[in-house]
């Protein structure tokens, strides 16, 4: 969690994150940013991993689809 690289953020964006993190009760802005990204990734990954490959494979199992 504490490894990885630094990421540059636009100052306005960072300020918005800080504001929300404070208001919502996160222990730090990092915690909020990490949470928000993970949430987004889960959505995307679910659709593309769980979703796309499996959906396509299942649909392609139909003889009509090559």
């Amino acid at each position, binding site marked *: 969690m504490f490894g990885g690289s630094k990421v540059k953020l636009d100052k306005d964006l960072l300020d918005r994150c800080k504001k929300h993190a404070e208001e919502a009760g996160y222990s730090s802005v990092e915690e909020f940013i990490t949470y928000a990204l993970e949430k987004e990734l889960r959505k995307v990954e679910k659709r593309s991993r769980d979703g796309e490959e499996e959906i396509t494979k299942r649909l392609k199992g139909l003889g*009509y689809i090559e």
Partner: protein
Amino acid sequence: MKDDNKVSMLKIAFFVIGLTFLIAAGGCTENKGSAEATTKKVLVLGFDGMDPKILKNLVEEGKLPNFELLMEIGDFKPLATSIPPQSPVAWANFITGMNPGGHGLFDFIHRDPNTMIPYLSTTKTESADKTISIGSWIIPLSSGKVTLLRQGSAFWEYLGKKGIPTTIFRVPANFPPAQADMQIYQLSGMGTPDIQGTYGTFSYYTDEELDDQDEDISGGKVFPVRVEASKFQAKLFGPKNTLQKDNPQTFVDFTVFVDPENAVAKVMLPGRQIMLKQGEWSDWVKVDFEIIPFLQSVSGIARFYLKEVRPNFKMYVTPVNIDPSSPALPISTPEDYSEELAREIGPFYTQGIPEDSKALSENVLDDGEFLQQANIVLGEELKMFDYELSRFKSGLLFFYFGRTDQLAHMFWRTMDPNHPAYDPTSKYRGLIEQTYIEMDGVLGKALKKLDEHTTLIVISDHGFAPFYRAFNLNTWLKNEGYASLTDESEGNLFLNVDWGKTQAYGAGFNGLYLNLSEREKQGIVQPWEKEVLLEEISKKLLAIRDPKTGEQVISRVYKADEVYNGPYVKDAPDLLVGYNSGYRASWETVLGKFPKELLRDNTEKWSGDHLMEAELVPGILLSNKEIKSEHPALYDIAPTILAEFGIPKGEGMIGNDVFTVLNIGRSR
């Protein structure tokens, strides 16, 4: 050691396989009074995809003596198919006596208007929504469900209420079979998955050097192996274990010993070993996949085919089928009917479409090997037919064969010189004809059962046509400005569609949908724009000409509200595209892809099809009684069968008894 009672109790509470299901306790619903002993018999044979033109030609050539006899003593007319002419749609018309507006199946493939994700239309699976986690285990607190999405009542529900003994054998679009009255026997057919929850995923073990793309095949999985010291180890995969976090796929380890001199191999599975010569098929092998160690496992069956030993090792394993003697999913009513059949004839294919056309398409099996596999299927079906026919004393027996459809799909190219994949040297050019002859034999057995109390009805769900050219409907929509993409790629599953700028899209084989503001989550077409847009698109579709041949690609476009009746019209594609003979939607467009080209040759082995304009591919109707109706249709058969037993047609049925009602002037 497994305790069978414990296992079946646990089955009810815990078992899930990738799909999940609900088992209702008990088999009976209401007791409808004593089953009246009736001597009336109605025998219905369903030959999927049997074509009236081919049938007529072969009869005229003297090759089908039983069809010829039935045409003489009885009657024969083409049978209008469904719009669109796809098996689940057509058979649903047969089952309910309605059209898709009444039963809700418009295509093999529907899409969710919220997520735009395509899905197989006949069955829905839902995981248990209440679960608790214990370590790495997820225990469902409520059952998951697998639901048949076909709406409306099946005609045999009316027979059940009257206590008429009924057997519905492998009719498509009937998985899972609905709970029924006691004397309704059903075995599910097309739509029934394999143990992995797919339409049939075979396994292929080989040490042949394959390119990356050869390893990624549809309908199956390739397992590269390396034979060292005359053996190798491999895995046979089963269902996902949804009781475990991350739902790992279950599997069974096995070892193959390859004889260093002879073309022989030994497959060692847990508790079982199989010796195979090159070119030999094993019998059905029971395979148990562990879900909970020592407590719960899922039973499947598979067959092994040793294709080659050297220079390369090649072994094909059938999709692991649900074991009929211990079914993991509800495939029959009563629940033990599949077990009864297995006791009678041995284990058998339970997957909905057992002929492994994917293995042939991917060249894992060649033409001859595919035919061997299809013959295994036919052998089982004939045994079951003999069994059912021998005990058919009263009521209704419906029996289905899918062979005519699958073999026409795969072998059209052997008999049609115009086909891009035509092979003039093929020794299988007589195969489609041979299939009709085999069905003639089946009919012969049925004719022997005819007496003065029996009505015989022979139907098919649609006919056949060549599939020469594949059309990318979605690409056309994009080119014409009706659809917009976020990037230049081909995409998949509509993932790169810019919905804010898209008015129309194609999904499924014959469906064209508008992106409606009142229906699609990201819809932009307003209600007042709909009719004008449909009119405009229809006109343009009919005007498309194939630059290669100059032919009309689409010969008919139907509006859903003009051809469908019933409560589900609102869910239908806005337009149904009727392709001209020779043309069909490409598989890419079906799955929401946008390839660059508009049309391309179909060079696949899957060379015949029927996903065209309905009027071009009618099915067949024969009977030992005179068919009075001038234009009989699939949805007439349900009221016809009910009328045979003196039962009025059910509510919502749109057809009529073909033996008494003329239907003069009916256009569809």
